[in-house]
């Protein structure tokens, strides 16, 4: 038998006898022959571990390893070595949703810590147990604002949202029958005037902005929350998690819901996932929030214990009346960022964010100094910025690739560069040399 199958011939005979069928095929006697699959799947033959390794190695060699100056929602931050090793603890890795609280305190415990840390980072009251990623968390926030409203069916979305997120919002909105209206940018930031005009038009359930926005610009949301609340609309901010170590928080901007991706908290880029979405909100909205929530309680021995709570909100109870179909969370990735925040702690998250800020501004200054670049919008930015290049931007991007650099993301006729604490001065200087050619 194969190494994952423990049944010996003698076992098989004894078990088949107990079940009362002659052979394994007899177990499917009830299935009409017309739909039985007979014969072999057209798949490769069984591989030994050595062959599996070799296959993956060959695939891996077809990927080019580039020094990353790209962001656009996914950032090349540093992963402390502790994290992968703890994530491989198989009591975490091979468990499922903590339905049986008595033997799942490990998972429930770290989710409670995760919720606590995300609430701290965003300056919001509470957090759920995590979502799939930032884009779907944004879509859930959009739906939550509509479900929480009276009858409003419109959600205003800043043109400063990443188009990748916007595309996911558009998908969900189409099927939900939600009307999405874009608030344009003025000089690179969300136009407050247009926001107010749209709010005045009525029927608005929620307003969604991104911080820093897709150009990397740190926006000033003064007055946004009041404008929303005057019209009974929820104010939603989509933030890059790591930047919140330093930036003014959604809580300080008086947001009702804070969402975003936690990938920037040390999760490898891994070609797009898995990452972890976060969702935080005010205490008032807790019963409107989608996804799992872990709460504190006591057991019958009077010990502090943690448990999945407020499940009456969830799909398996509400079925078609549910406002979200989310079932699981992104538990292991929530553990990832929880360990990250535990290690980095209060000081470390700030230091990493400040390093990223400094590196990005150093790069920006150096690029501008070449005389071949200018900032698309001359606005304050954090660790990502958008520049226009005076010459052929495609050729420049290609030159970067050939030299082993991922020189930003091509977007809106220019390049969007991101810098994290992983980028050394030497790497930045080398990139600038190429850019100055």
């Amino acid at each position, binding site marked *: 038998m194969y190494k994952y199958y423990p049944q010996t011939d003698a076992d098989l005979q004894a078990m088949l006898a107990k079940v009362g069928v002659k052979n394994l095929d007899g177990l499917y006697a009830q299935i009409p022959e017309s739909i039985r699959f007979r014969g072999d799947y057209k798949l490769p033959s069984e591989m030994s571990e050595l062959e599996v390794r070799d296959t993956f190695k060959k695939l891996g060699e077809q990927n080019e390893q580039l020094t990353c100056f790209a962001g656009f929602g996914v950032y090349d931050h540093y992963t402390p070595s502790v994290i992968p090793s703890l994530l491989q603890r198989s009591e975490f890795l091979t468990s499922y949703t903590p339905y049986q609280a008595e033997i799942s305190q490990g998972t429930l415990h770290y989710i409670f810590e995760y919720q606590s840390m995300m609430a701290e980072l965003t300056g919001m009251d509470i957090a759920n147990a995590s979502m799939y990623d930032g884009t779907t968390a944004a879509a859930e926030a959009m739906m939550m604002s509509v479900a929480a409203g009276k009858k409003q069916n419109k959600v205003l979305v800043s043109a400063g949202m990443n188009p990748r997120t916007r595309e996911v919002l558009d998908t969900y909105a189409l099927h939900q029958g939600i009307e999405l209206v874009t608030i344009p940018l003025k000089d690179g930031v969300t136009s407050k005037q247009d926001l107010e005009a749209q709010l005045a038009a009525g029927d608005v359930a929620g307003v969604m902005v991104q911080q820093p926005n897709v150009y990397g610009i740190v926006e000033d949301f003064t007055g946004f929350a009041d404008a929303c609340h005057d019209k009974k609309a929820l104010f939603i901010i989509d933030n890059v998690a790591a930047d919140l170590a330093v930036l003014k928080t959604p809580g300080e901007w008086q947001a009702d819901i804070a969402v975003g991706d936690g990938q920037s908290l040390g999760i490898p880029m891994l070609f797009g996932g898995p990452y972890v979405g976060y969702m935080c909100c005010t205490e008032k909205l807790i019963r409107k929030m989608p996804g799992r929530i872990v709460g504190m309680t006591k057991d019958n021995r009077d010990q502090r214990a943690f448990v999945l709570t407020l499940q*009456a909100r969830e*799909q398996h109870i509400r079925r078609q009346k549910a406002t979200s179909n989310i079932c699981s969370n992104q538990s292991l990735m929530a553990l990832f960022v929880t360990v990250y925040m535990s290690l980095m702690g209060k000081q470390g998250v700030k230091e990493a964010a400040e390093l990223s800020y400094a590196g990005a501004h150093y790069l920006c200054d150096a690029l501008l100094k070449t005389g071949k670049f200018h900032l698309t919008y001359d606005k304050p930015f954090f660790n990502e910025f958008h520049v226009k290049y005076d010459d052929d931007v495609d050729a420049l991007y290609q030159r970067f690739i050939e030299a082993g650099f*991922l020189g930003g993301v091509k977007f809106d006729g220019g390049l969007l560069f991101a810098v994290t604490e992983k980028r050394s001065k030497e790497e930045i200087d080398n990139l600038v040399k190429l850019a100055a050619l």
Partner: protein
Amino acid sequence: MNNRLYGNLIFELSKEGRKGYSLPKNNFGRYEVPASMRRSEDARLPECDELTVVRHYTNLSNNNFGVDTGFYPLGSCTMKYNPKINEEMAAQPQFQNLHPEQPAKTTQGALALVALLEKSLCELTGLAHFTFKPYAGAHGELTGLMTIDNYHRSRGDLARKKVIVPDSAHGTNPASAAVCGLEIIEVKSLADGTVDFDDLQRICSVSGDSIAAMMMTNPNTLGLFETRIPEIAKLIHGCGGLMYYDGANLNPMLGACRPGDMGFDVMHINLHKTFSTPHGGGGPGAGPVGVREGLQEFFPCVSPYHGNFGVMMRAYAYILSLGRENIKEVGPLAVLNANYIKESLKDVYELPIDGLCCHEFVFDGLKDKSTGVTTMDVAKRLLDYGYHAPTIYFPLLFHESLMVEPTENESKETLDGFIAVMRQIAEEAKTDPDKVKSAPHNTPIGRVDDVLAAKHPIVTFRQMKNERMKE
């Protein structure tokens, strides 16, 4: 796992001035984040040294039970073995450092893997194309229904907004339909647990023009194969609807049947069930959606890139390891294990529907109901004996549902051990019912007060501290 609770929170281990990180020095010169951008107060994250963090999470893991710890017969979740080689493959640096916006010619290995996995899944399901964007099973359901909705819209067939779902379906099915803006029609089950074909015919004759799809798992949530599936598919197709296959129960079909051959048009696969990727305490999973030829143009954009690529790498490693020879044994062995448990326990546990099951089956509690011992009690007592509990109180068709799914990876000895304990609990229910009703006794914590948690939710450390101050 331990039987004594490790109960600290990382916040309670924090001490000002400790740190658990090392970062390069800032040699970029004076670039200071301006005060106008800054938050007014630091996030109150813990301050711990590295060993404290490592011990804390290691100790927490000891409060947990996983497949690697012991038998985990959680029905409908397919808690099979998660091979270690999968983890090793997914950790390769040549993939870890790929930015998803990198140009395709620099990510040929990753793209080749996506294509190879797609080809494998097509072969195993009898469908023509897959999208890997969905992050989880429920996300896959939503994606599949959106695909169906997009298809009907493209034909101007705008009235098709109803989805037929069996009354035994997973709760996500109706919820996914609702999020997709579709309405549910429930079709009844017969006494034998399968779809009531007469009721389905009635629904189709009344609402045929508004049927977008029928959503089914096959085998269904009772672990029973819907033998009339070809007729059902014909009926639904006849009135213009599409057939959706919920891949939650795909495992027993490997080596036996392909959804495409059964007449399904759209399906999702839970890679974390059938394809051995770890459940991770509730995620990340992956829910790729497959369709028959012609429907791929209606795939919606439900995520930016290739979904949970790391999960896909593990699934592909699993397929390569097993190969065509061993993958066809998955279903038969899973089905044998389930039937063996069922036959060995049906004299003491109530089996509402007799006969061959597939990968799982459902008991309706203990046969002897006079003891007052419930399914909840049996589940909790199992924890005392070192087993994870089966799925309980689902499906909703029975009051005392206890749903057992052993998977193909469990040995006869493991199953015999479980059977012996289940029989012992049935015995205890008669001789010492209080012991069973007050279980568990050997776990880090006892039964929890769910009502307290929900009545007055405390979901963050800060709330916990504020609460203490009030006291």
